[in-house]
């Protein structure tokens, strides 16, 4: 872990968390994982594109402040499910849902939900780094500004803190005013993470965050995820089995929209209950 490069502004809570490959010190387990109110919980939750069902009746509890990986073959509905958690699917006109997806005990898709507050609390990092064509500073400050922070001192503080948290501060502190598109791909992705952290979310969704990056940048992002574990609930979609094994505490395996298996990563990878899961993680299909 490269915590030596970090300039962490607040105390770490779960320092005892071991690094890769098999973390998870405590074993809440998905079934009995109901501490107070779980942040994200799906109950018979389905997503349809028009007539076609992309996610079928998923029920699961995503454990708080842990890293949950979603794996599965291409087209099995991973992104669709992930995007449902902060209602990014609203952008797709033909997309609708049945069942319940709860966040803090509220049904995310109920009409009373304020999408903006929801998205503020559920941040997202995308497959391809997508910083705005603005300066590094403006990128990170975009979220806080949305919520009315104009004071430049406060903004600077937030920007520094978020960039540090994303392990990027040392690299960009001298070029905050430069266009973010000038950063390398890996830096851009960490900038996007910093941007998402700047609005202080509770949940961080990552859709294949390293698939567009080289191995070295990938390793840095994985380190970063391990750093953030314990402070944020992280849901990460990945095609890379090793990555899922390295960074996640829990793993969910989706196949054709159905949740086949969900459990502690260690267990799932060493001793899967389900034949399909075994086939998939051993690379026999997908």
């Amino acid at each position, binding site marked *: 872990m490269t915590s030596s490069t970090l300039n962490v502004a607040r105390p770490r809570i779960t320092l005892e968390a071991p690094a890769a490959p098999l973390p998870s010190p405590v074993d809440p387990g998905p079934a009995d994982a109901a501490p107070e109110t779980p942040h994200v919980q799906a109950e018979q939750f389905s997503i349809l594109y028009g007539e076609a069902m992309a996610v079928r009746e998923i029920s699961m509890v995503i454990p708080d402040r842990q890293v949950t990986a979603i794996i599965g073959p291409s087209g099995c509905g991973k992104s669709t499910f992930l995007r449902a958690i*902060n209602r*990014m699917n609203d*952008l797709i*006109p033909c997309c609708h849902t049945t069942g319940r997806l709860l966040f803090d005990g509220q049904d995310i898709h109920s009409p009373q939900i304020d999408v*903006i*507050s929801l*998205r*503020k609390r559920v*941040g*997202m990092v*995308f497959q*391809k780094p*997508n*910083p*705005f*064509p*603005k300066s590094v500073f403006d990128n990170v400050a*975009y*979220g806080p500004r*949305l*919520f009315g922070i104009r004071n430049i001192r406060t903004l600077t503080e937030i920007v520094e803190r978020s960039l540090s948290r994303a392990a990027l501060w040392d690299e960009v502190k001298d070029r905050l005013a430069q266009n973010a*598109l000038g950063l390398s791909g890996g830096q851009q992705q960490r900038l*996007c993470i910093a*941007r*998402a952290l700047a*609005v202080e979310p509770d949940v961080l969704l990552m859709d294949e965050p390293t698939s567009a990056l080289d191995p070295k940048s990938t390793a840095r992002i994985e380190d970063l995820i391990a750093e953030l574990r314990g402070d944020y609930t992280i849901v990460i979609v990945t095609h890379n089995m090793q990555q899922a094994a390295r960074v996640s505490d829990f793993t969910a395996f989706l196949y054709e929209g159905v949740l086949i298996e969900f459990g502690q990563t260690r267990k799932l990878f060493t001793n899967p209950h389900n034949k399909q899961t075994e086939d998939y993680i051993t690379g026999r299909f997908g």
Partner: protein
Amino acid sequence: MELSTRKTLDRAFSGTGMFSICLMTASLLVILLPVFAKGIKAFVFRETIENRKMILEQFHRGDSAALDIEWESARTARQPVYDAMQAFRIELDTLEGSRRRELRSSFREVESALQSLLGPEPGSTLSPLLRNRYGQTRWDRAQVKLQQVLFREAWDYSRPGEAGTRQWIPRKQTFAGTRLEPMFDHLETKLDSMLQPRWTFYWRFLSDDSRDSHLFGGIWPEVLGTLYLTIGAMLFAVPMGVIAAIYLTEYARPGRVVQILRTCISTLAGVPSIVFGLFGLAFFINTLQVSSSKSVLAGSMTLALLILPTIIRASEEAILAVPRTYKEAALSLGSGTWNMILTVLLPAALPGILTGIVISMGRAAGETAPIIFTAAVSVGKPLTLLQTLTQPTPALPWNIYNLATEHAAVEEIRHVQFGMVLTLVVMVLILNATAIAIRARIARRMKG
């Protein structure tokens, strides 16, 4: 077919393609070069002392002391001409009947040609028309006028069945033996000192009012009118066009309504510009009565309708070219749709939208047909901002037409016409160059 023939054909095919592109380039040059070469003469030319006098008296610029000195020497040079004419007038009365009649009419022509060359004879009463108060202000025009003093134009129809041929008969022959005869040689050799030509750069052509319907002065009312009309049209069309583009790209669900909207936009783009003019007259002026008759306001509105489709299409394209991920990133950070549009989408699409705006500005500036019935007049003063709501204005495109076809002295003011065309073309070219530059920058940014 043999291989060599196929290759020849292939090369010939490429050749014809190149040829057509070369032809296009050549026609562009053939059109633009004369406009530039002759248009520049409105700005850079040899001005005569008459021009300096006119500028001093009409526009109150120039050095009056220096002019006095020059004028003195010009007057000295001209004196023999007037002396000869005076002497001839006396002589004319002594001539016998038929010769006197013949010479008198010819002398009238000489007199009027001389007046237009050198200005009114000293001591004659001041004419209310400016064109009768000054001689030729430009040396090139003075040469033409000199020709008219020295020669008489005649048409020879002696060969039947063919078109007549033009002949120039020297007036010196006509007046041979009279006291006027030496005047012609004197005029030809001394015209220099009579008019004292000098090179000048008259950049104020752009900012001077015109006097005596463009015989003197510049084209400021037209330039200003064109600016008013263009900017007015943009004021209406840009917000409408950009908003429509935002609606079509971000809000509209594909369906029948959008289909109708798109069909109407492309239909609007195909309406002939003269029909826009008639519509502007029938709707904005006669029905809505935005102004009691032609006005800049009505013209701007008509032009705005004309360029609306262009702006909508350009903005739509620019907005669609913004990567979808920007939008998603902004929304995932908790931005509302409007906020996302204002802070991310529009800034990223701005260069593309600007390109469209700049190009349609050029179009609005150059369109004539829509403003004929809604905004343009031939002669007028520069308007104040408030007057644009109610008053018509001269404008470059309309006045180019008007001066080139309907003016009383079309030939005399060719330089003004070319100057106007040059100004308009340069305006449009600058706008298009801006658009090209913006686009190059976008392309570079996309790469980098």
